[in-house]
């Protein structure tokens, strides 16, 4: 197996400071032989310096100097490991109340969330928040890893109690039961991480690693409608490709085939897919997730920011949208403010028309608010300078999300999920 045919699974981890999240990831790295001797030696050295009598795997992932001093992670870190069949990317995000921003960011590029619960503490307010975000982002799978089982005598009762408590949360969410998996683990001791635990014979499910390995990559199973946002027009102007005018971009949602009747938005001009290229190969069809170049039968107007879709599968095109927004910048969002809205690769100007409500990120309802602060989530109505071609986030993730960019600093200040 090599890079061409190993599947890629992207994971976001969430947990409170003391739930042992970094230890869990360090353990996954260690058990998949992804830690090199020099890294293990560094961990041994640091663990010893701090006077620990065990290997502190959390040191494998805690990155920046400031964090090492505080002993907590403060941003999204990306960690990589692989087994024979699967490449994994972990977006490790901190679990404090004030870091919703980072969790949303990490979850946006992941298909599965691992939510950590300390077996001694059970479901706490943090758990609600983590699950709320997994639900908001409509992640495909959630693994509830009930950690530190070694500290509760590997008790099945404790596990069942937490599972039942969590079940009450699942009912409030959009998830079906099949999307949620509960695994009792001890990251420190390696129980049910890569090795089936002998301490918990009552648990007959997969280990964490086995469970992650049987998942299928999200973009391949996604089967909505094909969306092809044009990134860049390829015009070689060479002798061999004198009249070549190709539209490059990444394909989302579904397959596109040569001969498909397509519509170019915003003009709405209809034409046919003439050819599909990937580097020097000519393809008959392209799967979602492909970065390709296509040419069209007719000379239609088409440039960056336009979208090519199949005829009869047109998205909504509107100048006024309702969205759930998460504020990811310290500058507050207020009614009347203007932003640059980036939807995929397309940018338009946007104005906040109304903040309907600030949503409590723990399933406890909503309240009125005239602004959204960093880490706040709210329902917002926006008016746009030009229509964008979108789907609801619910029906098509890649075409239902956007970011807001501050007109002065150009910082990314919000992320939105279209209703």
């Amino acid at each position: 197996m090599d890079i061409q045919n190993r599947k890629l699974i992207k994971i976001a981890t969430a947990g409170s400071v003391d739930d042992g999240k970094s230890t869990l990831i360090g353990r996954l790295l260690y058990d998949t032989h992804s830690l090199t001797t020099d890294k293990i030696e560094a961990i041994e050295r640091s663990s010893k310096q701090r006077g620990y009598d065990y290997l502190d795997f959390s040191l494998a992932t805690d990155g920046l100097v400031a964090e090492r001093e505080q002993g907590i992670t403060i941003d999204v870190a990306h960690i990589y490991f692989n087994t024979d069949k699967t490449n994994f990317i972990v977006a490790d995000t901190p679990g404090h109340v004030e870091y919703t921003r980072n969790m949303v960011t990490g979850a946006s590029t992941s298909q599965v969330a691992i939510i950590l619960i300390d077996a001694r503490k059970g479901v706490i307010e943090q758990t609600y928040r983590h699950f709320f975000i997994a639900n908001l982002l409509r992640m495909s799978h959630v693994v509830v890893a009930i950690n530190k089982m070694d500290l509760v005598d590997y008790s099945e009762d404790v596990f069942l109690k937490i599972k039942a408590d969590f079940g009450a949360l699942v009912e409030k969410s959009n998830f079906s039961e099949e999307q949620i998996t509960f695994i009792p683990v001890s990251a420190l001791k390696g129980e049910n991480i890569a090795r089936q635990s002998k301490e918990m014979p009552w648990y007959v499910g997969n280990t964490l690693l086995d469970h992650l390995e049987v998942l299928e990559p999200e973009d391949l199973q996604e089967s909505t409608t094909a969306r092809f946002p044009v990134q860049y027009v390829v015009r070689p102007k060479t002798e061999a490709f004198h009249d070549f005018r190709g539209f490059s971009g990444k394909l989302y949602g579904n397959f596109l085939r040569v001969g498909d009747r397509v519509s170019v938005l915003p003009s709405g001009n209809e034409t046919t897919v003439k050819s599909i290229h990937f580097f020097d190969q000519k393809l008959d069809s392209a799967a979602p997730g492909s970065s390709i170049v296509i040419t069209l039968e007719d000379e239609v107007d088409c440039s960056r920011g336009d979208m090519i879709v199949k005829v009869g599968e047109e998205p909504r095109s509107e100048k006024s949208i309702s969205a759930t927004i998460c504020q990811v910048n310290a500058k507050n969002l207020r009614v009347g403010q203007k932003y640059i809205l980036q939807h995929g690769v397309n940018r338009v100007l946007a104005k906040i028309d109304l903040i309907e409500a600030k949503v409590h990120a723990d399933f406890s309802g909503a309240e009125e608010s005239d602004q959204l602060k960093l880490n706040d989530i709210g329902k917002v109505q926006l008016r746009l300078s030009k229509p964008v071609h979108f789907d609801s986030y619910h029906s098509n993730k890649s075409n239902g999300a956007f970011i807001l960019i501050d007109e002065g600093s150009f910082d990314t200040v919000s992320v939105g999920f279209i209703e």
Partner: protein
Amino acid sequence: MNLFIPNPKEAESIHILREVAAQFERPVLLFSGGKDSITLVRLAQKAFYPAKIPFPLLHVDTGHNFPETIEFRDQLVKELGLELIVRNVQDSIDQGKVREEKGRYASRNSLQTTTLLDAIEEFKFDACIGGARRDEEKARAKERVFSVRDDFGQWDEKNQRPELFDMLNGKIQVGQNVRVFPISNWTELDVWEYIRTENIAIPSIYFAHKREVFFRDGLIWTANEYVYREPHEKVIEKWVRFRTVGDMTCTAAVLSEATSLDEVVAEIRESTISERGARIDDKRSEAAMETRKKVGYF
């Protein structure tokens, strides 16, 4: 019917490179002659084919590169018809902007920063594409794909733009520029397997060869006029290869008999020492990389 299944990491990198070409006015690809920047060139070819790569290559030459690397660079540029800009650390030294390090661990590696920042200013580059990967080093694990730098090339880890889904925000103010890392999500093994699958040519020093070396601090150093050596450090001939091709002064070799790509990939899979373990510049202190990044190192 040919069913084409995309390699997700390759597709992501191509997407990023196209965003660079579309969002910036004067992008440049920082080319070191190493396997990561060679991989970037292949990805850029794929992103824009059948058109040419729409940005030049910039090589910041320390003057202490392996001659095999320079030869390779010139050959590649010629073959693909690319534009190559070379700026020399020696010139920065001659202009008195930086001072050559002395002694046992003397290296021009950290001096590159000044030459790079000068080149960015000279050509008004607004995006510098680099081959850094998040798996290389702890401080890199939190690096963004589009990393905004100020006038001084500085990186502020507390003030980075969140990157959501695959939407890249490359809007910058005057004086700012962006470092772009299209293979952020690749591992060392991913790169090697890709080079093998794609059959990409790489400099000969990546393969095992006989070389005059000496041992210091458990590392294998190249013995030649650029690398400081104590009289008692004895030169011997060994079969070695390199896992990275930085400067001769800061790149240690590993003992190896792998003379083909298959053998190299097999060795990397088995290997238990990280690639940066052979980077002498990182060994100076635990926080070495982070400190260098803050002052504009790539």
